[in-house]
């Protein structure tokens, strides 16, 4: 083990003595007059219940968390009395609010809880069983859902990698990351179930997509990783869900993609808000964020252009393999790609990273798309 407690407590007479005193009825009550703010929070809207926003009060609230959290490196609940004894250092490496915060993070956390769903029972699986999709189209669906599982495996890893490294004072933001873990795991589950239910079996993992996903996942800092995973990847996935839902071959697909849109919409909203807060409070990071994207943005093309995504998307969007269907599919996918990239730049602009579209290499490649 990397950590041994400072004493063997089973042998420590002071510790044993304290226990015995208390159990003999001699309470020390060091905690009884804790030096903390006395409040009685209550719901501002009874229909909504008691939200974290209702408890954004005084020393307990998140609004007043300082930019630099210097005085807490333990698990202590924000606002509690830390003076009672020596606390261990949990080794947090993210202690700056503007590295992780977003003004809407508490709202998004509350929303993610309220809008929960269960793939086992909330998806009408039977509808797919009753009206199965024709085999070659089902193969395209299976490939798409295989690809989407890869994306969710990576999406699951991102909050998992970082949550334990982030200061406990950012409890609401960490809680949202926990909701993200459940979102990703649920989407992984529903895509896996859909891929297998149709009978075409799982298809092929994608080299180019996985290489790009790993590059994004392994960003060196949380703000960079968040831009890649929460804004770029989740934004692209949101566009994919919208695209496939618009051409969904079955009501089963339409239903599961509707839930997927909801969940990824929250990720994108957080990612955009996180970048915005970051740049508002660390304006100097604008330059490094541009430089990071100069290097890492190629991954967006690596993912979109992966044949394991591109080809099934064309087939599903056109409705089949006939020549006119493939043409219709290509038309639609060409527009989808341009829309996805346009919305990506829009979100970056909104977040304060203006001018990305002019600086990025992506538009020059997109200009070359032709559909004959």
């Amino acid at each position, binding site marked *: 083990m990397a950590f041994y407690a400072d004493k063997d407590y089973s042998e420590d007479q002071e510790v044993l003595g304290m226990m015995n005193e208390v159990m003999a009825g001699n309470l020390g009550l060091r905690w009884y007059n804790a030096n903390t703010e006395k409040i009685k929070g209550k719901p501002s809207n009874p229909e909504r219940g008691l939200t974290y926003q209702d408890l954004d009060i005084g020393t307990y609230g998140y609004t007043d968390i300082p930019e630099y959290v210097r005085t807490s490196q333990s698990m202590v609940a924000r606002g509690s009395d830390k003076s009672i004894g020596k606390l261990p250092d949990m080794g947090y490496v993210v202690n700056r609010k503007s590295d992780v915060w977003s003004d809407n993070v508490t709202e998004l956390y509350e929303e993610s*809880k309220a809008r929960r769903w269960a793939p086992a029972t909330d998806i009408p699986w039977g509808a797919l069983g009753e009206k199965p999709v024709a085999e070659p189209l089902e193969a395209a669906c299976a490939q798409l859902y295989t690809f989407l599982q890869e994306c969710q495996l990576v999406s699951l890893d991102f909050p998992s990698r970082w949550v334990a490294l982030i200061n406990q004072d950012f409890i609401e933001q960490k809680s949202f990351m926990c909701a993200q873990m459940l979102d990703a795991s649920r989407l992984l589950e529903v895509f896996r179930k859909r891929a297998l239910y149709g009978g075409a079996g799982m298809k092929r993992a994608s080299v180019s997509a996985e290489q790009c996903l790993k590059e994004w996942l392994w960003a060196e800092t949380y703000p960079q990783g968040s831009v890649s995973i929460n804004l770029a990847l989740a934004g692209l996935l949101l566009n994919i869900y919208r695209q496939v*839902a618009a051409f969904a071959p079955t009501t089963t697909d*339409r239903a599961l993609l*509707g839930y997927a849109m*909801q969940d990824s919409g929250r990720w994108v909203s957080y990612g955009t*808000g996180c970048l915005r807060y970051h740049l508002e409070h660390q304006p100097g990071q604008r330059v490094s964020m541009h430089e990071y994207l100069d290097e890492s943005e190629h991954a967006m093309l690596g993912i979109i252009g992966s044949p394991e995504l591109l080809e099934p998307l064309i087939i599903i969007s056109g409705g089949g393999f006939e020549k006119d269907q493939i043409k219709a599919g290509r038309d639609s996918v060409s527009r989808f790609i341009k829309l996805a990239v346009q919305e990506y730049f*829009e979100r970056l602009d*909104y977040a304060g990273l203006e001018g990305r579209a002019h600086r990025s290499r992506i538009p020059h490649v997109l200009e070359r798309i032709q559909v004959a």
Partner: protein
Amino acid sequence: MALSFPSTDYFEALKGQMKAAQEKFSRLGFIDTTFAVSVGNNGKAHNYVLEFEVYELKNIDEVPTVDLKKVDFSIEGDERVWREMIENIKRNGQADTAHDINTLTHFGEQLKIVYDDPDGHDKLYRFMESIQEFFDLSSQLEVSFT
């Protein structure tokens, strides 16, 4: 008596239906968004701002023009398209894939999503199921068109 579309009465009726179906909407979760529905007819638009909070439609406002800074997004389209959607919902009990909000708005050819703030735009997707269920409540109404 049939409700005329578009009209405040139509949206009031949907509001009533939504209240009656509270269990369904509360299972779907909070819906916190304000969006506009803009119905065009011969160059003129009828605009309605719908304010949703928690699990219900709280407020309906007919406005001469939509101020995009005051709404998360606006769904705009010709009356013909809205009519087709509502008739499809009535026929099938809910919108089919070709007539749901996502499909109709996807490339902005039938219905268009207009917004000032991309974060507001993303709320359409965050609350998609609830918004779709809201429009699907039209299946319970008799609707007439001008």
